[in-house]
């Protein structure tokens, strides 16, 4: 029983995730471009794969069919989540690509970051659009937050 539970945790994809259509890819990458100013071309070297609630980045293999013959446990990097009708960037992906963001970046002091990580929600005023933000501190990107006027909510792991 214990073993089964563990298996479940890692076995995010019992089958190969599907490759997104051009249209769906465009929608996800446009979100990143519009929200953070990260050009779509940044992700040109990668495939965008999809499972029920998640999008994954995976390198473009020369022969995807051959790899799909393998019983896979995980593929690539967890990139974006589907949250009801919205898209939410993952902290994992922001930690990797967030330094390319040109907008909706929150620069916190170490003390502010510390408080946000402990309390999960802090009062915060900044000239930002409401929505997901990149949380950065002293040149390090920590991940994803949600800004609403006067408030910053942590989605850091």
């Amino acid at each position: 029983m214990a073993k089964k539970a563990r298996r479940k945790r890692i076995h995010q994809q019992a089958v190969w995730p599907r490759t997104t259509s051009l249209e769906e890819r465009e929608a996800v990458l446009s979100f990143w471009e519009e929200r953070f100013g990260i050009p779509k071309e940044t992700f040109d070297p990668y495939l965008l794969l999809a499972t029920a609630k998640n999008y994954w980045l995976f390198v473009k293999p020369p022969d995807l069919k051959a790899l799909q013959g393998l019983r896979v446990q995980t593929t690539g990097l967890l990139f974006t989540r589907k949250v009801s009708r919205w898209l939410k960037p993952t902290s994992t992906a922001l930690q990797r690509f967030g330094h390319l963001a040109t907008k909706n970046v929150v620069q916190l002091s170490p003390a502010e970051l510390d408080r946000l990580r402990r309390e999960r929600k802090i009062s915060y005023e900044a000239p930002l659009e409401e929505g997901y933000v990149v949380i950065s501190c002293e040149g390090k990107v920590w991940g994803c937050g949600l800004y609403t006027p006067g408030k910053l909510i942590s989605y850091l792991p």
Partner: protein
Amino acid sequence: MLTLAEAPAYFERYREIIPDFERFLEHLKEPLPLYFRLNELKCPDPEIVIRGLARQGARAEPVERVPNFYRVEPRTFPLGNTEEYYLGYIYPMTLNSSLPVIALDPQPGEVILDMCAAPGSKTTQIAQVTGDQAVIVANDRRLDRLTALVANLKRLGIACAMTTLYRGEEFPHGVPFDKVLVDAPCSGEGRYRQGYEGELLYQKEGRTNLPAIQKGLLVRAFDLVRVGGIVVYSTCTINPDENEMVVDYLLRKRQGRIIECHYPQPHHPGLTEWEGKILHPDLKKAARFFPHETDSVGFFVAKIERLM
């Protein structure tokens, strides 16, 4: 459990093949130096890490001859508890552990199988040197270890790897790999030293036949790689039964040749004779790295090209 006092008797068997045997024994009393690899896929600037660690009381200095490696003082410093670790800017690993991937020489676009990959020091190194652009299948037979590998891939922000859970000997055919790394399970003798006493895997269990497992893994790896492709076989043990004898077995069964490599660490040729048995002459092109000559874990590395 092998204590430091028992080490001389244990390693006596290797007196003829370990250069400067007495100095080797002395060296076992010294603790292992601490190193990390910097992950430039995530870390925007090495200075961020160096300054960050300095603030916490650790000094990190680049190892000139091995790109992206840093040596840390004091060697007891808990790198795993730092913010730099948490954010995936660093991967603590011993210096010689970089050598198998240096031999593999992975290139962007290549399809690579890391057959015994967990917890992923070499998988992540392959990803890093190819700029996240090799296609890596990272496999391990143990679920608990694969979980650690998956966590490391996530921590380091790697997108070019997928993971599988097969017994290496039974890894399915069908993907024409350009390269396969077999960083085999081994007795770990190269790791043995003060602070690591007793960590000789399986040695005392007597039931696990490591050379048989290693041969099975290596032959399968060879059969999985395309003709003209490369298999790198590595262990962190001194034992020729787990090193040259395993590669000799392959070269008698299959058509391959060993390719000589340039390494940034001092090394010795592989053995071409062991306990009276004459081995394949190519084995002199394999490499042995000793703890006392490298101030790291002892390693064996052979780079093999599939000819037919």
